[in-house]
């Protein structure tokens, strides 16, 4: 780090600590934590890729049962997609508001994120219940087993995300926007955005290609 930057106070409290010999010490905690969480997200995506691969292999094995073309309702799926996309947007804005210490906007953003995420989950559950009621449950065919494990795992991630979100909002209310709270919220927002990326792949491979 240049000495000018330190002298001008541009480095900020979280910037890399100078060691006095012109070189720099370890990276700030915020950077290390977010990078570690990014590695976790990538490994999570690799886990999903195994289920994507099994779905792609098994999607034609319907055991003379219903195929994706008979089962999927794209209007329903479109609303789910919009819910998740807008919740990603409001989550990003919420974190942005917290960084600028605008707590009201932060709570509004995260309330919207929760509402949209819960709507997504409700729609997905109603789809699952409808499929099982029509006799197209996970035990009907290899295609449906793969479908329920892949889409269900994503739904389980969204459920965990909603719990995490509620916990983080409560923690922000109790402890204020301190460094460790903001780091956890940053990790949560990365998690939420990653779920949206997985949904894009899921929407394309499972629903859009399957409904044709």
């Amino acid at each position: 780090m240049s000495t000018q930057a330190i002298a001008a106070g541009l480095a900020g409290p979280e910037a890399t600590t100078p060691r006095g010999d012109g070189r720099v010490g370890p990276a700030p905690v915020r950077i290390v934590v977010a990078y570690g969480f990014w590695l976790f997200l990538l490994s999570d995506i690799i886990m999903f890729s195994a289920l994507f691969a099994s779905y792609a292999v098994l999607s034609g094995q319907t055991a003379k049962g219903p195929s994706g073309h008979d089962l999927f309702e794209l209007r329903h799926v479109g609303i789910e997609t919009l819910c998740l996309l807008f919740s990603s947007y409001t989550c990003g804005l919420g974190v942005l508001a917290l960084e600028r210490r605008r707590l009201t906007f932060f709570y509004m953003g995260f309330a919207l994120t929760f509402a949209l995420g819960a709507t997504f989950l409700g729609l997905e559950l109603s789809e699952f219940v409808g499929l099982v009621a029509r006799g197209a449950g996970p035990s009907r065919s290899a295609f449906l087993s793969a479908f329920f494990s892949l889409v269900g795992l994503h739904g389980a991630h969204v459920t965990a995300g909603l719990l995490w979100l509620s916990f983080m909002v409560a923690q922000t209310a109790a402890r204020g926007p301190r460094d460790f709270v903001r780091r956890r919220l940053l990790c949560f927002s990365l998690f939420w955005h990653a779920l949206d990326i997985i949904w894009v792949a899921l929407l394309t491979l499972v629903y859009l290609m399957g409904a044709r």
Partner: protein
Amino acid sequence: MEHYVGQHVGSIDKAPGVGEQSGSLATYTAGLGFALLLTGASFMVSQTNLLWPPGVPAGLAVLAIAQMGVHLVFFLHIGTGPDNNNNVLALAFGLLVVTLIVAGSLWIMAHLNANMMPASAIMEMQR
């Protein structure tokens, strides 16, 4: 701020989503706009005959990959700057593993299917 420091030294790293200038209302809104356009295009391609029908899966794959790129850049702030090297390298390794798992499974299973005796012939042999 990290960006400012990074410009001077070049050895200071950035993490996904970190950085004052990388995330702003305009970035997120632009990302949302691109994502909406690409999602709309995906639904349109899959529901109409706008594209030559055998090319539709390829078209959908291209649109999906483009949208994932938009999400990475605008929401997760994975950019191409020198302070973003670690993040991009980790992403590249993740993509390599994902490609190996997905393409490898499809390749192997397609060949297994091709080499498999039809079920009726197996039944015949068991008599």
